[in-house]
């Protein structure tokens, strides 16, 4: 696929690390990111399936607000990470693996 021109939305440090790993392994940085995705999905296989069921139900019920709420469930953490990054505190990487129950 080469139809998207959007740059990676990664913290610059994460991007640099991916680039360095890719150079060492003689692959492209995007391959490293895709591999991380696959590993993440393998580790969270059951959660992924459950989330897909939840989304399918929301779509069946035609509740666009519910769908949007699901898609936005990690935004509080992402916003905190963005501000942390701007303030130069820590790596600014969003830990969104534990979404808030109220948003799930």
């Amino acid at each position, binding site marked *: *696929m*080469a*139809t*998207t*021109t*959007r*740059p*990676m*939305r*990664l*913290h*610059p440090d994460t991007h640099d690390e991916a680039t360095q790993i890719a150079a060492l392994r003689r*692959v*492209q*940085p*995007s*391959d490293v*990111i*895709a591999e991380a*995705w*696959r590993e*993440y*999905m*393998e580790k969270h296989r059951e959660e*992924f*399936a459950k*989330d*897909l*069921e939840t*989304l*399918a139900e929301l*779509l*069946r019920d035609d509740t*666009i607000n519910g*769908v*949007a709420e*699901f*898609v*936005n*469930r*990690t*935004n*509080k953490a*992402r*916003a*905190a990470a*963005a*501000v942390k*990054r*701007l*303030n*130069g505190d820590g790596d600014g990487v969003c830990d*969104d693996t534990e979404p808030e129950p109220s948003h799930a």
Partner: protein
Amino acid sequence: MDRPVSLIGKTAGGAYICEDWELRVTARCLDEDLNADPDSDFDAVAGLEIVKAFVKDRETHATASKEVSPLTCGHPVYRLAYGNDHRGATLHDDVDEVVWLLAYGRHRSGEPDDFFPACKALDAEGRLMPTEQDYERMFDERGERFAAAVVHEAPVILSEARAADGEHRCTVGGELGIGLSIEVDEELDATAITVAFLVDGFETVEQAMLLLAALSPGRWEMIGAMPSRELEPGEVAYTVTLISGEVV
């Protein structure tokens, strides 16, 4: 059903959408500098001269040659000017692809309300930069736009893919590239839908999940290749099988 028109060059909620980033005004700037409601949509302030200058100058160039300095925030904050004395301060966040209007005021050298000392005071107080609430609103609006686009476009994409000879390549929400292949085994009355996308095209895992769920309910499984080709660098692929139109 047609695809929605592109939002580029238009306002959406608190944003003005550009090709590679969006323009936004911080809640503090809306409230204290522009005398608007801090939750205002972009449209509500789009008629103000400084906001017109913001759109004109930052729609194609996210930065400028002159900075507001010295500041302690550690990021380049760029000057925005309109007329003799209207001044603004903007920040380009290239990770989250947004240009913020952080502050606005009049430049009156030597006067107590001169823009530049006021801007430096905001910086010193830690009130110049966008807040978590500013970012959360932006992410929420992006998620809502993405959800609306996917829900609206998924049936169109499926219909186009069914009519296509081989893999159908298209965009979702005007920018996210995907490849979609639909194979039908009439003898078994089975349909396999396979989709490939670049993982870095999504802002969150949830957005990728929504795309899959909107294309078809069922248990999507990650696979290592598209039916007619290997995956390209950075690409992942998922497939789901339906028998007689029902999830298996």
